[in-house]
Structure formats: structure tokens, C-alpha cells
């Protein structure tokens, strides 16, 4: 998770938490979303390679992916010190954003690593 935290380190302390009145800086919000996207993509590629090298097949690999993504969500939430609403719109963006986009990369790198290590 260290690398991931590095990626996330660029999150700006942006949206001071004003509860009643919605005040936010759109650019900072976008930056936060971008950070989530990057960390997810990065992790999906890395986890794909790991799954392939370890030789996961079938459901095992997908469970691994879900596990990694769940850990990512928790780590992102921890990075935002669990006050999601001062950084993001809702919980949804932390949990689901970039999930399916990462899946494609995951499958590709999983297949690639698996083939190179185990098939031939």
C-alpha cells in the first residue's frame, strides 16, 4: 500500500468541511477524483501482474481483484481520515469509481503474466 499512499499524497486538503452549506472547489474535487482514478488503475495493473505470477485461475483471480479494490477503498478512506464528505461528493466515488475501468486492465495483465509464467 506504500506506493498507493504516495500516489494519494497529492490529494489536496481542499474542501473545508462545511456541513450545511455546500461549499466546494470544483477543481480540487476533480483533482481528488483523478487521484482515485490513478490509484485504482495503478493497483489494477499491479494486482493483475501479481495474480498472474501467482497463478490464480478462474474465480480466484476475480476474488483477488475485488479484495484489492476493497483494500484500496479502505485505504483511500483512511487517507481522507474517514471524513469523506470534506473531500468527495459521496461514498460512491470512493468505492465504485474506476472499478470497471480497472477490471479491463486487470484482466489484460493477469492474462499476460499468467501466460508468460505458467502456460508456456
Amino acid at each position: 500500500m506504500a506506493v498507493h499512499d504516495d500516489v494519494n499524497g497529492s490529494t489536496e486538503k481542499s474542501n473545508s468541511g462545511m456541513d450545511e452549506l455546500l461549499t466546494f472547489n470544483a477543481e480540487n474535487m476533480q483533482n481528488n477524483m483523478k487521484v482515485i482514478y490513478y490509484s485504482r488503475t495503478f493497483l489494477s495493473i499491479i494486482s493483475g501482474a501479481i495474480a498472474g505470477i501467482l497463478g490464480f485461475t478462474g474465480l480466484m483471480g476475480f476474488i483477488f481483484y475485488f479484495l484489492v479494490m476493497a483494500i484500496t477503498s479502505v485505504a483511500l478512506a483512511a487517507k481522507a481520515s474517514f471524513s469523506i464528505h470534506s473531500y468527495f461528493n459521496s461514498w460512491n466515488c470512493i468505492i465504485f469509481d474506476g472499478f470497471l475501468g480497472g477490471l479491463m486492465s486487470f484482466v489484460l495483465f493477469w492474462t499476460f503474466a499468467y501466460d508468460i509464467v505458467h502456460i508456456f
Partner: protein
Amino acid sequence: MAEDLVLDTAIRDWVLIPLSVVMVLIGVLRYFVSKLMKGSSQVPDPKIVKEGQVIIRARNLRAGANYIPAKSFRARKAYYSNEENGLLHVPKGQAQNPQAQMFSDPNMAMDMMKKNLSMIIPQTLTFAWVNFFFSGFVAAKIPFPLTQRFRAMLQNGIDLSTVDVSYVSSRSWYFLNLFGLRGLFSLILGEENATDDTQRMMQMSGFGMDPSKTLGAEKDGLDIVQHEWALPKFEQRAEAVLRKLVK
């Protein structure tokens, strides 16, 4: 049956790895070529820039409406959406036909074509290359089982119905790469590339769009803003925060 298939290591060394590397490199090359092409002098029409700026200003007003007193907000709103000479008000009949506008500016069409070509040409070439050299054999195996429906997708170019579906032909490996590498590109080339395609689409439709329509939409948006000055409440907020601090 499926497990019996033995793939030559030469396939890995000469097909699987080179194909993936080439796909990555071509993606990088495409990025720089399209950047080069975009860099060529492009002087935007001052009128369009002006309209865009007006829209941005109106949007800012809408976003920050609650931070100014009602009177100031009303004055600014009148400045933008007044029926006679408001900035967002477009007199009828003056709106340009977007199609005509596009034809009057050959640069725009040229630009669009360049952008399109920089996407299509490399893809076609790579596909032809893969087709020519690597067609007709199994190149990879995906590590999870799939149903028969995926056969057409994954074994493109192999006409054997007895091979297990999880084996992938080289042509389909190319397609897998095409979709799966998008994430990698966004990491190594920055976010510009990730949003590139969609952004292009937006730009394309944006060029063809009637600027008076966006102005009108912004005007409507401004008209329906419910103004509620936030600052009176802020004093109470500040009081609460300070009290908490003092405690």
C-alpha cells in the same frame, strides 16, 4: 482436452511479448504525433473566445451566487440576462448556422480530419500487421473459463470448435490489448491521453454546436437560481466554532 494443448515457447517470445510491446509503443507514438499535429498554429476566432469567456463568467456567478448580497446578485444577473443588451441575450435570427460556419472555415474540417486520421491509421496498420504475421494460431490462454458465446470474440481467426474457449488467438489478443492498455496509457502519458478520445468527441460536437444555444442555456440557468445570501448564517457559524475553541 483443453489442458492437453501445449504452446510453443517461441509463440511467447515472438508473438505474445512483441505484440504487447508494440501496442504500447504505438500508443505512445500516437500520443506524441497527435500532440505534434495539435501544436500547429490555430488561431481561435475572437468571437467564439469572447462567448466562451462570457459563459464562464456567468457560470461563476451562478456558483458563487450565495456569497454576494441579493442586490449585487440582481445587478449582475441583469447585466447578463437582460432582455435588451444582456451579455447572454442573443437576438433572434442572428444565430449562425453551425453547418455553414463549418464550411466557411476549412481549417476546422481539416483539423478534425487530422485528429481522426491519427486515431484510425495506426489502428488499421497494427491490425493489418497482426493479421498478416500472426493469424491462425493460439497465442495465449486467459486464466478463467468462459462460455461458448465468447468464442467469436476470443478466437477470432481460428475456426476450430473443439478448442477450449479460454484459448485466445493472436488477433483477439490484439483486441484485448487495445482495450486493456487504456489504463496503462493514462498512467504513463498523463491524464491528457485518458480523456483524449472522449474530449475529441466533445470538441467535435462543440464546434458544430450553436454558440447561441449555450448562451441561452446559461441564461436560463441564471434565471432560475434561487438566491439566498449565505453570509448572515456564517456569523452564527463562526460563533459556534469560536465557542467550541474557547471551551
